[in-house]
């Protein structure tokens, strides 16, 4: 991988922020977009902007073809069996809400259990809290090890015949932990539960095979993997999606409508009410083209070496606490003792380094870590070793700055 060539594909990276070259290390929040994705979306708006699945005119046909081609690219990318299993949503949050309300609500009752992990993003937590409150189901958590991992024997002890839904993130957005979702799915299935995998932080960084995982549902967002915001995917096994009632109804999703009732279109359109984010879907298709041209395995191994460098450099700095396991996906969460994460983030920003500070939409996890917030530097394949060194240098300087200004 030639990083300098790759970086030229991302126009935003070539700029000064606060008088310094931008070092963008907030990729777990959202990734930057290559010219090919931006241009694909501009082309749609400039050359064939039309609604999909409606008109029979030429532009409408072109838009529909491109929109459905993107679905097919996404299907191949995650190795789903059929296009019917790929539902366009606005992102991971909507995908998880569709599962909780469209699948869970009608099937859960008093005494049933939903099991999630303590490291879930609020998007994979609050919908389950809500559905548990509405149905009388119990929301349970897998215990988490000291290093922020899940132990399979404890997973096995937590899942029982009462468990109806297990929902776990493949990669923690705070700790970088890579969870053994395939093994957890197996345990869930042995007890008759379905397995939901939050792939928001894994899909951008590693090869995904939903059939090999045997996930019943798998969800992710386009904007964290070079695509635009406002587009995401709900994958579900066809028989489960067939059984789901649409929670949004209206245009696009119908078969036949009478004065008093209506019947639904077939999958995937049954679960896609209204005019979709057409440019977003086509843009996500272009993002997948770009990722595949580099190769997900190359991306994963390059990011692993970046992350190892970051972990090593940061763990050598006195007074820096790192969170999460040694083996992790491409991010590092840390604190500088005695300096609040927001103050660290402001200091780094003044050096052109963009990181995230806060609770990362994971407040229960923060209480497990016994802190209120952390600083998070998260990487993508266009980041360089030099940028990791700039981060380490910035952290040392921040520590000195706040050590002196008293």
């Amino acid at each position: 991988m030639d990083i300098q060539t790759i970086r030229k594909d991302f126009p935003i990276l070539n700029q000064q922020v606060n008088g310094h070259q931008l070092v963008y290390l907030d990729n777990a929040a959202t990734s930057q977009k290559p010219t090919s994705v931006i241009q694909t979306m501009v082309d749609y708006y400039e050359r064939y902007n039309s609604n999909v699945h409606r008109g029979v005119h030429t532009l409408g046909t072109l838009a529909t073809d491109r929109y459905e081609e993107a679905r097919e690219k996404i299907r191949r990318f995650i190795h789903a069996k059929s296009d019917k299993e790929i539902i366009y949503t606005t992102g991971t949050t909507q995908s998880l809400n569709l599962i909780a309300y469209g699948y869970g609500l009608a099937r859960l009752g008093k005494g049933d259990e939903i099991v999630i992990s303590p490291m879930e993003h609020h998007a994979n937590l609050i919908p389950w809290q809500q559905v548990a409150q509405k149905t009388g189901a119990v929301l349970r958590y897998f215990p988490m090890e000291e290093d922020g991992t899940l132990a399979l024997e404890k997973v096995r002890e937590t899942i029982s015949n009462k468990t109806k839904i297990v929902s776990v993130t493949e990669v923690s957005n705070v700790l970088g932990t890579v969870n053994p979702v395939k093994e957890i799915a197996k345990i869930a299935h042995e007890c008759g539960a379905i397995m939901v995998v939050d792939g928001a932080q894994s899909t951008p960084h590693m090869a995904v095979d939903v059939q090999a995982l045997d996930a019943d549902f798998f969800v992710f967002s386009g904007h964290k993997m070079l695509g635009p915001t406002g587009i995401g995917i709900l994958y579900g096994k066809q028989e489960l999606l067939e059984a789901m009632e649409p929670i949004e109804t209206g245009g696009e999703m119908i078969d036949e409508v009478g004065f008093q009732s209506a019947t639904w279109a077939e999958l995937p359109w049954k679960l896609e009410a209204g005019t979709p984010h057409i440019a977003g879907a086509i843009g996500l298709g272009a993002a997948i083209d770009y990722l595949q041209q580099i190769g997900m395995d190359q991306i994963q191994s390059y990011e692993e070496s970046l992350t190892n460098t970051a972990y090593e450099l940061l763990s050598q700095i006195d007074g820096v606490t790192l969170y999460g396991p040694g083996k992790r996906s491409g991010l590092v969460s840390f604190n500088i003792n005695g300096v609040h994460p927001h103050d660290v983030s402001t200091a780094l920003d003044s050096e052109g380094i963009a990181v995230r500070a806060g609770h990362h939409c994971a407040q229960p996890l923060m209480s497990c870590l016994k802190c209120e917030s952390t600083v998070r530097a998260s990487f993508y394949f266009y980041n360089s070793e030099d940028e990791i060194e700039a981060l380490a240098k910035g952290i040392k300087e921040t520590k000195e700055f706040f050590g002196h200004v008293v």
Partner: protein
Amino acid sequence: MLFNNLDQLYRSVIMDHYKKPRNRGELNGNHCVTVKMNNPSCGDKIQVSLEIENHKVKDVKYLGSGCAISQSSASMMTEAIKGLDVDQIHQLTFDFSEMVQGHEHNDDLDLGDAEALHGVSQYPARIKCATLAWKAVEKALRTADQDLNHE
């Protein structure tokens, strides 16, 4: 030079309040009101207690956790408003909010050490940190208005 503008934000008086907070604690009693406020986007928390008698804030205490800006601002706020009449406090919180947003503001009233936070206006992402405690005071005054007047 590193961080050449950063000391305009983190002035020594601010760091002094952060490291040696004034008026930390809680007030309980007949004329006391306590409110909590969070900044949900970043997790900063603040609790402000006021003791109000004859339309005056006789005493004020705060508890909280968060960044240097939010916590020093809270500490400075307690010094600035203690002993003031409720109407003056409304004016002061308004002036403070205008100042940290970089707007023209009235300087008839004395913000005290809190004046040092004017540098926040150059850091738009941090304005909410600076105003959290002052918004909590406004909330406490509204609560007091409802509770204490209807006793």
